[in-house]
């Protein structure tokens, strides 16, 4: 570069810097509503709950610092173990079933042709039902004596279990009921299926691949990022499950029979916070759940490096 050229570049740099600064300011200005919202409604409560987890706090009186007592109590509280076990068992049952059902429905919908829109709407409608209503519906549909589910099972000579009262069947019942809201995952997977290039499937067919081979050899790998997303989101939802089980077993209509089999972690957390007013302990519980979800998600992400195919990446 000549000296004259260097002088021209140098004279342009402050201008570029100004421009860059102006652009950054504009970007931050546009981002500011979200940033403010994040700070006020997410970051601050997060930090605040971390602080509260080291205190004894009932909202009414001042919090008093008690060190790691709440965390020590987590270890010795048998209900924490019960509720964690229930939550993990529910999630382990729910996620695979949820993904299989969503994928199955999405595959069916992808072949529905012109009627796909109608079916998509029909499948999505249950998702619009408030979770509390779903909880109440669960009690009606799965009633061991007069429920529709057992009624249908009886047509095939199968004596249905006491889904709502037998501790062994409460979680499987709730898992089945969770399929009620599978629609969101169906829509995501359907969109992914529709993005699979037709020519790839045609090429596989020409090579002699049948339906199942095409589905599991071509389609599933190609939609694996969407599947991974559904698995991660469903797992988090499973670990945070609350509404339906609370409405069915702990809500106003059922205050006299809180079934321990449906005592999920967030329900117990809610009880500690808002019924017993142990906000400090509930905050510690929330942080334990946060760590658990983080750990599970990290494991899923690590596993996904081997199993999920992203376009443009060489290895699966």
């Amino acid at each position, binding site marked *: 570069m000549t000296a004259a050229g260097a002088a021209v570049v140098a004279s342009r740099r402050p201008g570029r810097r100004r421009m860059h600064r102006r652009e950054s300011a504009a970007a931050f200005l546009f981002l500011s509503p979200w940033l403010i919202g994040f700070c006020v409604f997410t970051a601050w409560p997060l*930090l*605040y709950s971390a*602080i*509260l987890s080291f*205190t004894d*706090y*009932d*909202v*009414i*009186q*001042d*919090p008093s610092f008690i060190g790691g007592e709440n965390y020590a109590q987590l270890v010795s509280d048998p209900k924490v173990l019960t509720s964690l076990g229930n939550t993990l068992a529910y999630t382990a049952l729910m996620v695979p079933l949820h993904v299989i059902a969503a994928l199955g429905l999405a595959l069916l919908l992808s072949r529905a042709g012109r009627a796909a829109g109608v079916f998509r709407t029909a499948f999505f409608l249950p998702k619009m039902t408030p979770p509390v209503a779903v909880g109440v519906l669960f*009690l009606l549909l799965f*009633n*061991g*004596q*007069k*429920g529709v589910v057992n009624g249908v099972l*009886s047509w095939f000579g199968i004596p249905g279990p*006491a889904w*709502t*009262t*037998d*501790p062994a069947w409460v979680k499987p019942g709730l898992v089945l009921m969770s399929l009620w809201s599978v629609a969101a995952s169906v829509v995501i997977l359907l969109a992914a299926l529709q993005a699979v290039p037709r020519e790839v499937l045609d090429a596989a067919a020409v090579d002699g691949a049948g339906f199942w081979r095409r589905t599991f050899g071509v389609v599933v790998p190609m939609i694996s990022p969407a599947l991974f997303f559904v698995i991660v989101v469903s797992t988090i939802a499973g670990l945070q499950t609350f509404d339906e089980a609370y409405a069915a077993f702990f809500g106003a209509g059922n205050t*006299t*029979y*809180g*079934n*321990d*089999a449906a005592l999920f972690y967030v329900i117990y957390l809610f*009880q500690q916070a*808002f*019924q*017993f*007013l142990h906000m400090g302990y509930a905050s510690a519980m929330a942080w334990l759940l946060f760590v658990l979800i983080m750990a599970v998600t990290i494991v899923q992400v690590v596993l996904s490096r081997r199993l999920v195919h992203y376009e443009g990446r060489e290895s699966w």
Partner: protein
Amino acid sequence: MRARAGRKAGAAGVLALALMASGCAVGTGGASGEHVDYSHDRALHGELSIMGFSGVDEIATTRMDDAKKGLKGVTVKAAEGDFDLQQFLSAVAAGKPPSLIYVSRNQIGSLAARGAILPLDQCIDGEQIPKGDFIPSALAQVSLDGHVYGIPEFDSVQIVMANRTLLDKSGTKLSDVNGSDWDAMSKAATALSAHSGSGLSVIGVDSKLPEFLPLWAKANGADLISADGRKAQLDGPKVVEALTWAASIYKDQGGFGAVKAFRDSADFFGAGNQFATGTLGAMPMEQWYVNVLNDVSPDAPMAFDTVHARGGGPIAFASGSAWAIPAKSANPEAACRFARIMTSTQAWMDAAQARADARAKDGKPFTGVLTGNRAADEKIKPMTAGAAAPWSSAIAAMYTADQHTFSLPANPADAEFTAAMNDAVNAVLNGQKSPKDALAAAQKQAQQALDKGWAALERKK
């Protein structure tokens, strides 16, 4: 160097945030209102915000009208909906609690222990509220550590409701299902119950566990908690015996799961209720259900009696509501006067007359109202004279039961105590634990909660 400076700045930032957080994490409780002038003849003004009082029926609206008349100069604003603890706590945390709250009496102890509500001794003296008129068990439920924290109203009591046709068909006497003889009641449960191919088709007797464990324990001579609210007594032999027996009622009919599922499938508030459809022999139930039955199935073959202590007389486990004034209430004077008028004998009389008129208009009998105020009850009872059998027997049983009530005394950990008790009963009903083991675990859990609650209360003093 720059990295170290950055780390220092970061640490300072976190520390500043932590300090801010601890600064913000300030409770809003604490006593206030120590020097409030509650004189009954004092003119009042300002606004009275009420939380938890829906006021939809004539019993509520008539008394509300009376209260508004007695509070000229005060604007009364009642938020719709039942008392919501979360909503209340949010208001407290925001430093703007309502002036007056309407809560279940069993919440009073916990709120009082946390300093969320004011002691009402001065209010009672100043407004000259006739404390002696209140039913003792109702007053006990709102009294903690020697102070009254709530003005009670309403009394829910259990009476035995039975299906006369089923009783007659099985040769069972009403006295067999009133709890006076547990062996007879167990036999009656089996005799009255019926099974079809799909399972239970008639519930013989529903002992209404877990919510009525206190009733059966008391019927067996045991209190679940000491009178001063300090000691849990869940693991006493008489309590174990009561739970064992009350749970066995279900076992004899196919298990609690079957009974509960069948109970849940019933149209509890409709014409297809268990008594009208002949699918329930007998159960103890709060008196308000008499009104439901009379409304939706006036021709149901009903029989009523009081619940009896084992080998003894009538007994009832009472509950109800109460008015309480939050600490830092913006208008405690108006709140106190409002509570006084709402629970006054005159207001109850007016409300009862309005209800009786409304029922007469619909061609239905007035089945009375239990006010929690003995003087009011005595004056309202004669107004129920027009009711015909079997409803007249329900009314008689209800008023008799109200003379023999007990309650769980106020304590600073009622929610935890109740949860421990219900957990124990559920564990027994689910077959997970024996009554003895379940109640021993509940005792430990409940006592820990009580100790913690009382210790916090002592610290505050």
